[in-house]
């Protein structure tokens, strides 16, 4: 496949986000939205679902407020929760058969709870997609693994009741292979992003990576590999090597700012990671659930100190010159990690530049301020 053609397809998929569902021809398959990392997409795929992300917000849908649901939304809710609820109430997600919410994602859980209650009270103007909770826990004890297995059985049973097929071993094996293939392609992207002589911009890598959230795994890995194969034709980028940590962000404006002051070589915010979770050692549904329950980057893991060390190690492996920290306006978790992360990075010889709170969609003035701040700090 031609590299430029692959890039065009990846960027189109990312730009349309969950919307290609209404234009794609294969309507026979049920479309299922996923909110948050950590959802066992293998099981959804094996049940015949076409999986798309619903957390990242398409630009045209980021300002459509719904009066009814907004009367229940406190301003301190996560931006992704607020926008999702508005999109749901506005009917922008009506093409989905179901939406699966990850317990591991704080924004997703609250979105699930509010959507469910709004629906229970009879406010909905149109039927919502089925609202399903992926309620898995982190840990390695037998009790946690039993619990997660039960959640997997329950999720499959809910999908089957919605008309999906009961996944058999062969379907699961095929889905795992596709999942692994996608993860390996994403690892290649991560490696390309942090290579000695990087050629990708942070924005390119961000778009290509997350385009996979709206494409079939097999199709995506082929497109991504084709896109990567052409990167040698791009000029080598020079400048300070940067890491990005903090709250989840899908702001392209933020990536443009980072690209203007350095080279993003380690994107470690939730939209910069390989999703939905680890793939190493996964051969069947049991090992899949075990691997997902031991995700070192999971924000609900049993030790934030372990997660902080995993982030600091990843920055060191990518040979970052500096790490940029940023938080959404209502952050209530990363702020606890930041001083320890700062210490862990300092011990590895990497300074941290804290951008502080940023808007969901920073405007031009905010971008200018961020750029000036970073330029000053980096000496770029």
């Amino acid at each position, binding site marked *: 496949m031609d590299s430029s053609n692959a890039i065009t397809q990846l960027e189109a998929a990312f730009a349309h986000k969950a919307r290609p569902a209404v234009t794609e021809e294969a309507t026979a398959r049920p479309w299922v939205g996923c909110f948050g990392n950590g959802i066992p997409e293998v099981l959804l795929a094996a049940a015949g679902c076409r999986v798309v992300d619903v957390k990242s917000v398409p630009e045209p849908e980021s300002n459509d407020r719904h009066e009814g649901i907004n009367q*229940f939304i*406190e301003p*301190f809710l996560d931006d992704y929760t607020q926008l999702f609820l508005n999109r749901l109430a506005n009917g922008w997600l009506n093409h989905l058969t179901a939406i699966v919410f990850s317990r591991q994602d704080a924004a997703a859980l609250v979105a699930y*709870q509010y959507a469910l209650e709004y629906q229970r009270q009879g406010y909905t103007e149109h039927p919502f997609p089925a609202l399903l909770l992926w*309620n898995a826990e982190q840990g390695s004890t037998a*009790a*946690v693994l039993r619990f997660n297995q039960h959640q997997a059985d329950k999720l499959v049973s809910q999908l089957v009741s919605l008309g999906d097929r009961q996944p058999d071993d062969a379907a699961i094996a095929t889905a795992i292979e596709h999942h692994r293939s996608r993860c390996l392609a994403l690892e290649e992207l991560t490696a390309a992003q942090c290579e000695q002589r990087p050629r990708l911009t942070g924005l390119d890598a961000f778009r290509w990576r997350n385009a996979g959230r709206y494409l079939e795994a097999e199709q995506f890995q082929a497109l991504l590999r084709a896109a990567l194969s052409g990167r040698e034709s791009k000029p080598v980028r020079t400048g300070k090597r940067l890491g990005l940590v903090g709250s989840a962000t899908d702001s392209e404006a933020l990536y443009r700012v980072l690209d203007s002051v350095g080279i993003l070589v380690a994107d470690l915010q939730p939209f910069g990671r390989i999703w939905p979770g680890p793939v190493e050692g996964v051969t069947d549904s049991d090992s899949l659930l075990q691997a997902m329950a031991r995700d070192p980057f999971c924000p609900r893991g049993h030790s934030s100190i372990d997660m902080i060390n995993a982030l600091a190690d990843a920055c060191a492996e990518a040979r970052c010159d500096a790490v940029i920290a940023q938080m959404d306006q209502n952050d209530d978790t990363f702020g606890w990690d930041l001083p320890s992360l700062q210490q862990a990075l300092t011990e590895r010889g990497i300074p941290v530049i804290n951008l502080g709170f940023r808007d969901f969609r920073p405007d031009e003035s905010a971008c200018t301020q961020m750029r000036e701040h970073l330029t000053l700090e980096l000496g770029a």
Partner: protein
Amino acid sequence: MSDSNTTDYQPLASARLATEYQRDWVRGLREQIKAGSDFAFVNADTPHELFHIMGLPIVTNQWWSAVLSAKQLSEYYFDHMASLGFHDRLAKYSSLPLIAELEGDRERQPWGGLPSPAILCARQSADDHQRIFSLWAKQTGAPLFLFSAPAVPDPEPNWWELARRDWETLYGTDRLDLMEAELYQLVQQLERITGRPFDAGHFARYMDAINRQEEIFDEVHEMLAQAPRCPIRISEQIPNVMIPQWHRGSDWALQHAEAFRDEVKSRIEEGVAVCPDESIRMMWVGAGLWFDTSFYAAFEESHSAVFAWSMYLPFAADGYIRYDQGDPMRALAARVVSMNEQLHQPPWVNSWLADQARRYRIDVALMLIPRHDRFSGQGSLFAKHALEAAGVTVIEIWSDMVDRREWDREAMVGRVAAVLDEVKAKKDFDVVN
């Protein structure tokens, strides 16, 4: 925590006794610790029962936070929090004790502060709990026992009607299985710390005693809901309920609950009222306003308006009574598995508050909504609408339970007074017509 603008209101003897007991208990604990005893530092929504039964004293995070705030130390610690690099929008209620610990000057803390605990315990009900307790563990070297907190996929609105006996249906077998297994894991860890074996028979009797204590609180709750006029202030309800809750199931806690009940009963029988001409009944929704508890009496003289309800007493019954159905450990799992969620998650919080407002004949609700404590603030607007649908006037108070920096008492009194004027005028009009 004293009231200032009182006239002839007579404080409850039981409230003073509870406060004195807790102060003496903390002093005694310090002496025990100096002599080499261990203690545990735990979150409010963890199974205190297991620590009690294993003979390991506990200090509760949220209680210690309220004490630090009541001693007017929160501003100092929150300034220190900023100097450590933590931003100002992080939750304060659950973290104030951590900041005091990181600050390190124990003499600044009440009663000489707390030494390092033998174990820390939290439940991952809110996403920041693991982080706060991980930092504490890192600081002190104490082991952290962290309970899983899977969400509730299909919450029944009328949880309080099911929770006492039909908890298996309400909370779900899978969640209870996980919670019960983790309770046994904690038991094993406590056996190692204390060197004592777990006694299942003793535990079953102890769980019965807790149910008895909560049944007494349920009696008080019913009496207060039905009393023609409110006989006690909520600032006295709270220590009379929460201090025994921190010692739940002990002989002292049961005796104190009975003494509290008897004192309330006498007051009702004697026709005692906080406001003899009570005309407006209010509820305080949310955690206590720990740095300014005298606010609860601010409208008695001006408007004959009394706070008749705070969550602590009714929740003692609805949140704690779990009949064991032959399995005390599983009953404990049922008590703990959604303890905090019942107070914050829709539809649980909105349904419960609306029901409570009807039972207490509430006219006005003051709803504390902390901007920077998302878990505590979530569900507030669903609750507001439910209360309004039940005929209650709701005043939103966007503030924090331990951070007084956001609190302007004079402005708040003015704001509430204006609403009370309207409510009183409407009630007077309704009476005339």
